[in-house]
C-alpha cells in the first residue's frame, strides 16, 4: 500500500467519520488499524448535557485482547477492577503449548473490567481486560 494512498484513504475516512454521530471509529485490517476519536463537540450546549447513563460504555477504554489461543491465567498480584495499572504491568498470561505468554496493560490507566476467569480457554482476539486511559 503506497504511502500517498494511505493518506488519501485516511483523509476520506475522516470526512466520512465527521459526517456521522460516532464518537469513536476503529478499523482493523491485515494486522494494522486506524482509530478516529471525535473531540468533545464544540456545539454541545452545557444545559443539554445529561449525566452519563449507567450502562453507556465509558470513554477512552481500550480492550486488551488475546493474540493467541490458550489458557488464560492471572498473574500476581491479582488484577482487580478499579486497579490503577502501570504502562507495562503484566496482568495475566495465556498459556499455549507450554509457554506462558504475558498479557500486559500496554500503557497505564484504570482497569475497568476483567473479562475472563482464571483457567478459561481464550481465542485469538478475545477481550481479556478493559482499561480506561487517563
Amino acid at each position, binding site marked *: 500500500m503506497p504511502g500517498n494512498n494511505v493518506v488519501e484513504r485516511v483523509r476520506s475516512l475522516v470526512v466520512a467519520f465527521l459526517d456521522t454521530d460516532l464518537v469513536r471509529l476503529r478499523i482493523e485490517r491485515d*494486522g494494522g488499524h486506524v482509530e478516529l476519536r471525535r473531540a468533545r463537540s464544540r456545539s454541545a450546549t452545557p444545559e443539554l448535557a445529561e449525566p452519563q447513563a449507567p450502562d453507556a460504555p465509558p470513554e477512552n477504554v481500550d480492550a486488551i485482547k488475546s493474540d493467541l*489461543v*490458550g489458557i488464560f491465567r492471572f498473574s500476581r498480584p491479582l488484577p482487580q477492577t478499579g486497579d490503577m495499572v502501570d504502562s507495562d504491568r503484566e496482568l495475566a498470561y495465556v498459556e499455549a503449548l507450554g509457554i506462558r505468554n504475558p498479557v500486559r496493560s500496554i500503557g497505564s490507566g484504570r482497569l475497568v473490567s476483567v473479562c475472563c476467569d482464571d483457567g478459561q480457554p481464550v481465542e*485469538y482476539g*478475545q477481550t481479556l481486560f478493559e482499561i480506561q486511559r487517563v
Partner: protein
Amino acid sequence: MFKKVLIANRGEIALRINRACRELGVKTVAIFSEPDRESLHVRHANEAFCVGPGPVARSYLSIPNIISTALITNCDAVHPGYGFLAENARFAQICADHGLTFIGPTPEVIGTMGDKATAKRVMREAKVETTPGTDILESVDKARRAAKDLGYPVLLKATAGGGGKGMRVVTGPDELERAFAGAQNEAESSFKDGRLYMEKLIVSPRHIEVQVLGDNFGNVVILGDRDCSVQKPSHQKLIEEAPAAHLSEKIRNSLYAMALRAAQAVHYTNAGTLEFLVSGDHAYFMEMNTRIQVEHPVTEMVYNIDLVKEQIRIAAGEALGYTQSDLRPRGHAIECRINAEDARNNFAPAAGTLTNVVFPGGPGIRVDTHIYSGGTVPPFYDSMLAKIVAFGETREAAIARMERALRETVIEGVNTTIQQCLEVLATDAFTSGHYAIDFLPGLLRQADAA
C-alpha cells in the same frame, strides 16, 4: 473411534469433515479467522475458536494456535482437509508430537511425496511409469543428444525450478541452443542454480487420477479413476468426472496396477490420489496428493462410499471393511466447481456479499457449499463457493442433470463460473468425452477471438 476432532480448515471442506464426524458420533472443533466468524463451518461445529486475522499465514496456517486449540479442547485428532496444512509433513509431525492423530498418511510419506524428485524416484522404483527424462545436462551437446533420444518436443527444466521459471518448451533441434541458454540464465538469476535437466513434453494429455485408500494393516484398495482434464489456463481444475470416458481397459488396468504398486511401495495409509498424464497408450505419473481431493465426491457417488468417514476410520485404527472385489462402481458422476471468479477476465477472483443464493436439488444432485444468502466472500481465501455434483446412470444422464442443476443455481453478488461450466457442458468435445487439458484454454481463446 475418536472423541473429538479439530478441523484445521474452512469453507466447504470444513463442513464436509464436520458432516462425517457428526455422522460418526464424533464431536468437532472448528477453527476460524476473524472474517470467517459467521461461516457455516463455525456454526455447525460443537466448538469453535478464532485462531487469527484474515490473512492465512496468521490464521489457517498458524500451527501454534491450531495445535493449542486442539490441546485446550481435548481433541484427539486433527483433520487438515485439503490446501493449508494438508500436505505439510512438519505439521503432521507436530500433531504426532503433541499426541494428536493427524488424519492422513505418515509425515514420512507426506515428505516423500511432497518432494517431486524423490517422489519420481520412488515411483520409478515401484515400476510406475514417469515422464521420460534425464539427469543434469552439463552442456548443450548433451542436451542435443538427450532430445534426440527422447524425441521432440521436449521440456528443459531447472533442477531448482518452480513456478515455470527456467523452463522452456523445445519443439525442434533448431531451437535448442537458444532455449538452453535462456533457461540457464533464468534459472541462474532466479535460483542462483543454473543446472538444467530435460523431460519429454507430453502433448495434449488427459489428466487422469486414481483414488487409493490404505489402512494401517497393509490393505489397499483402488477406488477408480477421475478425469480432471477440464482445467483453466492456470491448470486449476474446473470440472471433474468419474469414471473417465473412453479410457481403454488396457490403460485403466495399467493405471490401477501402478497406483496399487505405488501405494504398497510406500506403505501408504489413509486416502491419497495419484495423478497421471495420459496420452495415447501411455500413462505417466505426475504427482501424488497425500490428502482428500476437492473432487472426491464424484468417486463417492459412483462407489457409494463416504471417503472422509473412511479417512477418519482408518486414522482411528479401523481396518478397511471391504476388499477390492467388493467394490463395484455404478453410473457416472460429474462435479462442477462454482468459483467466485470472472471467467471472462482470466478467472480473476471476486469478493463481496452474496445477496441471493439458491442451490439446486432433486434426484442425483449433491451440493457441497459453505455459502448462503446474505453471507460474505472474504478476499483472503480460495475462490471456490460450491461444488455441484450430478449423478446419472449414464454419462449422458449425468450431463443432462448437471445442466439443469446449473440452470437452477442462483448466486448473486459476485461473478461465478456457472456460465463457464454451462458452456463447457454444451461443447461437442465435452459431450463426446473426447477432451484433454488443452480443451478449456482453447475454448477460451475461441471465445476471446469471437
